[in-house]
């Protein structure tokens, strides 16, 4: 088995005394897989991602990240391997300047300041945002914030990237730029999005979640061209696939 992998076996999740959000999910991904996670609103995409980093712990079944079980005692280990990009960049970025925010994780992991600086520069170069290094977060546009959000997790040098709606509120140019950056990252990626065109451009595999279950799991091109499957699960064909 490869070094970098995610294994979920029969995982179900419900908020306290609530209805189950996810039911009997079995999912595996490894190495440089790029997986699109799609589904209608409330399907459980964000819950799925949050379970992988231990933000939702009261699940049943088993989740393992690189053989480490996701449980309260292993969260520090798990989280050092996974980078999570929030849907709302304003929640992700909480420091004053870009440098401080991107340096937050490496500093917390106790790296010496020289290494922190190296990591920050590397992450900013990977996202093409080196020119924003000293900029203050509140002065940045939505597109810039999204790229910096990605840089904040790349500076952790994670094995796995989880992204929740990365293209939300981006203009076409920033969206294209994001796609370019996502394709250049050779990590195991799971991208949850309603933007099916983005999934088509960045993921070779797609998992469709509907009513808490995996309704389909396969090559992106097959799933995103299956109009009947998509419509049955509250979705539509990607814009680029529609005729007329």
């Amino acid at each position, binding site marked *: 088995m490869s070094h970098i992998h995610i294994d979920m076996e029969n995982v179900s999740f419900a908020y306290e005394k609530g209805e189950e959000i996810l039911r009997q999910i079995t999912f595996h991904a490894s190495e440089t897989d790029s997986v699109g996670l799609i589904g209608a609103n409330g399907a459980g995409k964000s819950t799925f991602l949050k379970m992988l980093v231990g933000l939702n712990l009261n699940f049943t079944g088993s989740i393992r990240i690189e053989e480490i079980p996701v449980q309260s005692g292993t969260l520090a280990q798990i989280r050092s391997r996974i980078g999570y990009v929030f849907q709302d960049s304003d*929640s992700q970025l909480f420091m004053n300047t870009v440098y401080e925010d991107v340096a937050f994780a490496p500093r917390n992991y106790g790296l010496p300041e020289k290494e922190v600086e190296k990591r920050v520069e590397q992450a900013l170069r990977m996202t093409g945002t080196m020119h924003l290094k000293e900029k203050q977060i509140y002065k940045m546009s939505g597109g810039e914030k999204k790229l910096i959000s990605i840089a904040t997790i790349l500076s952790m040098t994670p094995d796995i990237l989880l992204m929740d709606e990365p293209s939300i509120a981006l203009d076409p140019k920033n969206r294209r730029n994001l796609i370019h950056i996502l394709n250049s990252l050779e990590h195991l990626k799971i991208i949850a999005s309603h933007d099916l065109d983005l999934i088509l451009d960045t993921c070779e595999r797609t998992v469709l979640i509907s009513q808490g279950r995996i309704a389909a799991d396969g090559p992106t091109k097959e799933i995103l061209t299956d109009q009947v499957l998509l419509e049955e699960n509250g979705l539509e064909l990607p814009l680029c696939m529609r005729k007329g």
Partner: protein
Amino acid sequence: MELFSVSGLSERVYMSKIGGTIREIHYMETLSSRDQWVNQIHPLVKFVLTVIYILAVVSFYKYDVAGLAGFAVYPLAVFILAELSFLDSLKRLRFVLPLVCLVGILNPFLDKQEVMLAGVPVSAGVLSMTTLIMKGVFSVLASYLLIATTSLEKLCYALGMLHIPRAAVTQFLLTYRYITVLLEEVDRITQAYLLRAPRQKGIHFKAWGSLAGQLLLRSLDRANEVYESMLLRGYQGDYGYMREHAVPGRQDRRYFIFWMAVFALFRACPVILVIGSIF
């Protein structure tokens, strides 16, 4: 107050004051993150100096205006070294300084005896009012200069070095972070309300309850997301901050010793009067 118009509506909607408050917070962060020499001084040194300065200032006798006047040298020097605008700072302290000045306003009426100042008889009440105002203004300016040259994260680091309990420091830091979150939510809710109620001057009292509830829920949600984002990037109750500069360096120590010597000198003798007597 800035104005903007809403298409299709003749009413003018006032931009919220909350937006201005958020900008003020961001402005202070801009100042503290600059590359000025004073900004680079170790936060522990600046914090301890500020505390000692304030203690020295408030320790002056209530009629010792001349002795106290010498202590103006510290804020003046830091203003120059940090290249901060004095007028701009006064503008930002416009709500605090009048309050400070109000503290001693009754002294001239309560203390009517006369004391000698440089051989001239002066009303003791006026003198004690002046020293009170000076003490207040100097203390406020010193605190302002501290936060204008030191980010809150660095200040918290300094507090940690002083063995202030970690939980208290973290609480302080997160409260500061969440003030912005709370203000942003208040701003969003207020704007959304005013844009749909352009004829109203403020928020109608009938809507207060639901808006307050919304504000609480939304702020909690956002605060939780910010906290989750911190957790996911290795946060374990301690900012891994400035490890390389854990201890003040040689330059920091020189800065500290210099100002301690100045404070001791100005506290021990009324330098202003001595200089005045020479000329």
